[in-house]
């Protein structure tokens, strides 16, 4: 333990009032506190990318560009928020892309059966959560690694989506602009800020859940020391089940919101599985450990925001589509290198 103490005891002598510290010390304190945040590296990365695009793209910091940016990251932040709960356990859910794909089709099937819009969405999300429960069951109770269990689910649901849709694009229910339907559409993704509000509410709620509730503490405990948590009496399997269900539900919601926003649902597994990779990238760039025990939902939102800024910025700079992925790869590596460096400073030693 080569960790230097945060504050030497003689720095707080009794005769001095607490407010009398000089500005430099306060700034140093704040700097330290900032670096102590799990999200510090992604904040640094985001500020750097904003400065870069702000300088190189005229009119970058405008309201209309902000609105352009929203569809890139909001649904991703929602998917990533659920994934944080799985990855904090040291597990991974590869089926989120497939859940993103199939849930809007389930929603559509339910409405064609005559069920009203809102109940259809709710039932579709419950079904998504149940599919997540299947992931959790195979992982927690059967003992299949989550990587494999959710990979199987990915293939299964991709196939099911193609069967359900007859491989044809459909118009999202509730998106024709009349009366109650338009209210539904504007709440569930159609409104300009609808997805942003959903993302902020979900990220806020889940961050509070992760940091300040028993569920969150048990999630960290299970991811950090599964046997130890079980010996302390934590029902680790139940936590696993619950988190996979949450992750599936957020992926399904993201799918529905995007379906409503774009007014159509396309049975395109390769497209949705791209979002799987984006969401995992967002979680990791945001500061959640792949090994478990540490996670941040806000970080995942920022990770998604960073990926959004990149795509939007490259688009604004008219980078040819063929080059976008190349730059994306480079940027992600740079972000991760920064993450490792900042983490080393945070931990106060050279070993990371």
């Amino acid at each position, binding site marked *: *333990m080569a*960790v230097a*103490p*945060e504050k030497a005891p003689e720095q707080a002598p009794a005769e001095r009032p607490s407010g009398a510290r000089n500005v430099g010390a306060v700034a140093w304190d704040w700097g330290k506190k900032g670096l102590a945040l799990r999200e510090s590296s992604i904040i640094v990365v985001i500020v750097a990318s904003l400065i870069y695009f702000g300088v190189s793209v005229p009119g970058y910091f405008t309201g209309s560009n902000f609105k352009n940016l929203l569809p890139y990251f909001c649904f991703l932040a929602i998917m990533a928020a659920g994934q944080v709960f799985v990855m904090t356990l040291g597990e991974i859910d590869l089926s989120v892309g497939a859940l993103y794909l199939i849930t809007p089709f389930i929603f559509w099937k339910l409405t064609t059966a005559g069920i009203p819009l809102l109940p259809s969405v709710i039932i579709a999300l419950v079904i998504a959560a149940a599919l997540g429960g299947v992931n959790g069951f195979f992982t927690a109770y059967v003992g299949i690694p989550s990587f494999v269990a959710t990979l199987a689910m990915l293939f299964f649901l991709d196939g099911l989506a193609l069967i359900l849709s007859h491989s044809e694009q459909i118009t999202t229910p509730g998106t024709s602009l009349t009366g109650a339907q338009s209210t539904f559409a504007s709440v569930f993704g159609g409104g300009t800020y609808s997805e942003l509000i959903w993302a902020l509410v979900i990220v806020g709620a889940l961050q*509070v*859940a992760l940091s*300040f*509730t*028993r*569920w969150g*503490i*048990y999630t*960290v*405990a299970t*991811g*950090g*020391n599964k*046997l*130890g*948590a079980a*010996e*302390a*009496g*934590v029902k680790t399997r139940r936590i696993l089940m619950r988190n996979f269900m949450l992750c599936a539900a957020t992926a399904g919601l993201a799918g529905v919101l995007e379906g409503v926003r774009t007014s159509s649902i396309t049975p395109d597994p390769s497209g949705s599985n791209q979002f799987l990779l984006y969401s995992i990238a967002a979680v990791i760039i945001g500061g959640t450990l792949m090994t478990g*025990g*540490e996670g941040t939902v806000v970080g995942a939102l920022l990770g998604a925001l960073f990926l959004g800024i990149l795509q939007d910025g490259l688009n604004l700079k008219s980078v040819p589509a063929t080059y976008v992925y190349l730059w994306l790869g480079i940027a992600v590596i740079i972000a991760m290198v920064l993450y490792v460096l900042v983490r080393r400073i945070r931990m106060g030693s050279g070993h990371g």
Partner: protein
Amino acid sequence: MADQTVAGQPIVEPSTAPDDVLRIEHVTKRFGPITALRDISLHLRKGEVLGLLGDNGAGKSTLVKIICGFHRPDSGRMWLKGEPYAPKDVLDARAHGVDTVYQDLALVDQLSASQNLFLRREETLRPTPLVAGRKMRRQARAALDEIGINIPRIDLPVARLSGGQRQAIAVARAIRDQSDVLLLDEPLAAMGAKEGAMILDLIARLKERGDVAIIMIVHNYVQVFQACDRANLIQDGVITFDKPTAESSVDELNEIVVEEYRRARQAATTGNGGASQPSSA
């Protein structure tokens, strides 16, 4: 029972006493082909510190895990404060007043001292599901003060604390619900001399309070005589020695263990021919 002997040692039947907190009679446990506990009977008096000795694989940890509700015995019976005791799981055992500090401490490195202290016992700010963090930190500090342990910052992840401090947190966690029986699985393993002394002090203070009886697994015979009122030796799944430490000595214990080794060796060398056909009728 006379035919059931280990390495020539007779099985020691525990003497009965009315103030027994815990009694165990003829407990057995198998894991597949391996018999971990052949026939265990022991008792624990109120406020007593019982040292559990034995070689690796003798069954000490299995016994502790049965008492704390992590494993269930295959047969045998247990009594806690005169009542039949058959814990369904760790939580059930804890509800009955039996708490455990495992060898690996069961601490979560990423959680703070107070979060670890309250793991699975968090209070919430009703009616919200939020955990009462401030209250927990205050109570954690008080609990650690009470057993004389100073942890500079209880809001830091315990990964940053020393081995002795981590052990102290695990002990504090175990005793915070006024438990009747405290099980310590090798509390002194991998401790430096100073940290070991700190833990021995802690056990002495707990003994002084007198409300908790302790069973501790110890490897070092000298430490048994420092910390324990009585010592039990497990050999090959059976208790073969049960004496107050005041009436015994390190030499006596050594003698028994060395004896067992010699016997086993002799059996191995003389029984060479019989190895291929063990039950030559």
